[in-house]
C-alpha cells in the first residue's frame, strides 16, 4: 500500500514535470552562444547517491571548474552546467532528462550513474537526436544492438567486469589455491537490476569458457530487507570464490549476515558500485573488509603518474587535491575518477575537435568529432585509451579501449593487484585467517 501511494505521488509529479517540459527545442540556437550548456544528471538523492553517484558528480564538477578557470573549452567557450537529480529512480531520470533537454535546452546531457536509468534513457535521448555522454553506468545493453548515433561512453562496459574477475581467479588458482581453474567452484550473486544481472551474465559466460564450476547463481532485489536465506544457500553450495555485484545497502547487509551465519570462502570479489566505496565499508566493518577484491575502472590515485601521457599526471593530482578538499575523504572512490575522467575526455578531446573541425557543438558535430577520438593507452587519468565503436559495430558508441583492474583492500589501503603488468601489490589470496569470511 505504501508503494502504491508513493507511485501515485510520483505519477502526479511526473505529469506536472511533463507539462512544463513541453517547449520545443530549436536546433542550432546555441551556435552563436559562447558558452556550452551541459545538463548534468546524477542520482544526488536516493540509494544510489552514496553508492558512487555523488562522488561521480563531484568528479564531473571538478572537471568543469578546471576547464572554466582556463577560460573554457579552447580557452573561450565556458561550460554552463545545469544540474538534475534523478533520485535513483528511472522514471524521475527520464523526466529530469526531458526537462534538461527541452526546457533548459542543454547542448549535451552528461552523467548517469545507474544502468537501470541509462538503458531506457539512452534510447529516448538518441531518438531526439541529442547527445548523451555516459560517465558511469556500465551495462552493455545501453548500446548493444541499438545503433545509437549520439550516445557515447568512455567507461568500460559491464561485460568486462565479469570477465576480468573470472580470469583473475583462474590465473591465480594454481599458485594460490593449488587447484586447476577447472576445479575452482564459483558462486555468483547479484542485485537483479540491469547492472547486477549484466555483470553476472558476463561472469557466468567467462566461468563457462574457463571451465570453472558454477555452484550457485542467484539474484536478489537491492532493497531486500533480508539475505539470510541466500547466505544459508551459499553455505550449502560451498563455493571457493564468491563473485558479488550489488549496490550499497545490500552489500552491507550481505556482508553482515554472511559473517553472522558463518559463510566461509577463499575469496570475495566485488564488482564496483558498493564495493568501490571503501570508506563506507570500512566505517561499517572495520578490518573485516580487508582483503575483499573490487573490480572497477582504476581509482586514478593508484596509477603511477609517470605512466600517464603528457601533463596528465599533474591534472590527475590537481583533481585529487580538489576532491579531497571538497569531501575530506581518505580513500577516494573510483567513481570520482570516472566522473572526472569521462567528462574530461569530452571537454578536452571531443569538444575542441567538434568546434574547430565541425563548426560548433551541435549533436552532429559532436558525434563526428567523437568518432575521430583516438586516445592511446595512458592517455586518460584512468590509464585506458579511448576509441569509440563506430557505425556498423554492435556496440556503437562504446569505448573499445576501456579497461578495468582488480583492486584489493590491504591493510586499510587500496592496491591494484591485477592485471599483473600494473599491479601495485601482490594479491592476498586466499583470504587470510584474520578475515571472518576465510575458509578454515
Amino acid at each position, binding site marked *: 500500500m505504501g508503494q502504491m*501511494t508513493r507511485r*501515485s*505521488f510520483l505519477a502526479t509529479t511526473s505529469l506536472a514535470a511533463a507539462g512544463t517540459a513541453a517547449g520545443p527545442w530549436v536546433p542550432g540556437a546555441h551556435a552563436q552562444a559562447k558558452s556550452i550548456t551541459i545538463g548534468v544528471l546524477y542520482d544526488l*538523492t536516493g540509494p544510489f547517491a*552514496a553508492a558512487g553517484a555523488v562522488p561521480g558528480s563531484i568528479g564531473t564538477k571538478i572537471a568543469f571548474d578546471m576547464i572554466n578557470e582556463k577560460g573554457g573549452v579552447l580557452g573561450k567557450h565556458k561550460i554552463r552546467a545545469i544540474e538534475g537529480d534523478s533520485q535513483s529512480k528511472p522514471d524521475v531520470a527520464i523526466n529530469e532528462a526531458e526537462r534538461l533537454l527541452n526546457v533548459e535546452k542543454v547542448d549535451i546531457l552528461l552523467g548517469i550513474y545507474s544502468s537501470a536509468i541509462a538503458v531506457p534513457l539512452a534510447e529516448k535521448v538518441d531518438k531526439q537526436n541529442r547527445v548523451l555522454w555516459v560517465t558511469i553506468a556500465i551495462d552493455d545493453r545501453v548500446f548493444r544492438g541499438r545503433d545509437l548515433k549520439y550516445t557515447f561512453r568512455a567507461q568500460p562496459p559491464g561485460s568486462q567486469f565479469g570477465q576480468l574477475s573470472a580470469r583473475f581467479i583462474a590465473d591465480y588458482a594454481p599458485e594460490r589455491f593449488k587447484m586447476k581453474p577447472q576445479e575452482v567452484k564459483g558462486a555468483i550473486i547479484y542485485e537483479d537490476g540491469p547492472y547486477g544481472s549484466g555483470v553476472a551474465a558476463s561472469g557466468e559466460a567467462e566461468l563457462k569458457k574457463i571451465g570453472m564450476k558454477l555452484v550457485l547463481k542467484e*539474484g536478489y532485489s537491492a532493497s531486500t530487507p533480508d539475505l539470510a536465506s541466500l547466505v544459508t544457500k551459499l553455505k550449502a553450495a560451498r563455493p571457493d570464490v564468491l563473485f558479488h555485484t550489488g549496490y550499497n545497502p545490500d552489500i552491507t547487509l550481505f556482508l553482515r549476515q554472511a559473517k553472522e*551465519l558463518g559463510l566461509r570462502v577463499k575469496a570475495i570479489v566485488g564488482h564496483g558500485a558498493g564495493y568501490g566505496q571503501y570508506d*563506507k565499508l570500512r566505517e561499517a566493518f572495520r578490518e573485516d573488509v580487508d582483503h575483499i577484491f573490487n573490480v572497477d575502472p582504476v581509482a586514478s590515485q593508484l596509477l603511477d603518474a609517470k605512466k600517464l601521457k603528457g601533463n596528465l599526471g599533474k591534472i590527475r593530482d590537481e583533481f585529487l587535491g580538489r576532491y579531497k578538499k571538497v569531501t575530506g575523504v581518505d580513500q577516494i572512490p573510483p567513481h570520482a575518477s570516472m566522473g572526472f575522467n569521462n567528462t574530461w575526455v569530452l571537454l578536452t578531446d571531443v569538444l575542441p575537435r567538434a568546434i574547430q573541425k565541425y563548426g560548433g557543438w551541435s549533436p552532429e558535430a559532436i558525434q563526428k568529432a567523437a568518432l575521430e577520438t583516438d586516445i592511446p593507452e595512458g592517455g586518460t587519468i584512468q590509464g585506458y585509451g579511448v576509441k569509440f565503436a563506430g557505425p556498423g559495430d554492435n556496440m556503437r558508441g562504446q569505448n573499445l579501449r576501456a579497461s578495468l583492474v582488480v583492486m584489493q583492500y590491504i591493510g586499510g589501503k587500496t592496491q591494484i593487484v591485477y592485471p599483473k603488468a600494473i599491479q601495485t601489490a601482490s594479491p592476498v589470496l586466499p583470504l587470510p585467517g584474520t578475515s571472518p569470511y576465510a575458509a578454515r
Partner: protein
Amino acid sequence: MDPLLVAEAAINGILLGGVLALLALGLNLIFGVVDIVWIAYVELVMLGMYAVYWLVTLWAWPVVLAGMAAVGLVAILGILVHLLIIAPILSSPPVNQLLATGGLLFFLQSFATFLWATDHRSLRLALPILEVGGMFLSFARLLAFAVSLLAMLGLYLFLTRTYIGTAIRAVSQDREAIALMGVDARKVYIVTSGVGGAMAGLAAALLIIQYSVHPYFGAAFGPLTFMIVVLGGLGNMFGAVVGSLLMSEVISVGGIITSTEMAYVVAFVLFIVAMFVRPEGILSRRE
C-alpha cells in the same frame, strides 16, 4: 538440501518475523484506534535509527541507553505527528489522509537527506557469532526477537490491564459509542500515537544493530510492513504477529527451496490470494 540448513533458515525466518511483527504492531495499533494508515511509519523508525546512531557515535552513549532515548524521542515524534498532521484531517476523506501521511513520508526522507546526506551509516558493534549444533543464528536478530516478544507482552498487558488501554481498545471497537460513554477520544488518540511511536523507536533501536541507516531505509521495510498489516487484518494485533511470521517464513524457507527472488514472488502471490479469499485479513474479526 541439508535439513540442518533448512532448519537454520526456518529459525532465522522466525527471528526476522519478530522484527517485522514489532513494526506491524505499532502501525496496526495506530490504525485500529485512529483509523488512519500512517504511510510514513517506517520513516519514523528511520529517524529513530539516526537518533541512536548519533547518540552513540557523537556523544559516545552506550547503545542500550541510546536505544531507550530513541524510544522516548520517537514516542514524542508520534504524538507530534498526530497533533500536527493527523488531528486536523481526522474527518477528511481517506484519500486526503493518505496524501497527507504520504506527504510526510517524502518530507521526512528529504529532511533526513538534507540533514545527514545520503550516506549509509552503521554502528560498528562487535556482536558475538552464535553457533548452535552446527546452525548459525544471528545474535542481533535473536536479541531483536526477544525484545519484540517482551514488547508484545507489554503492549498486551497495557491494552488489557490499564484503564487507558481499555479505553484504547474500546475506541477501536466503536468510536461513536465510546464518546457517548464520556471517554475523551482525543486523549486516547494522543496516547495511542505515543505508544505507536514508542514501538517505532524500539524497532529503530533493534534495527540499527543489524542494518545501516540512510534516508531511504523505509523502502526496504515499508511495503512489507503494510502488506503484513493488511494480511493480518488492519487493526488486529494478533493478526499482525501471525502475518509477520507467515511472511518471514515464506521469505526465508521459500528462499532456500526456490530462490531469493522467487520467495518474494510466492509471498506476494500468497498475499493476493489471501486478499481474494479473506479481503478483511486472515485473522480479522467477523462483523
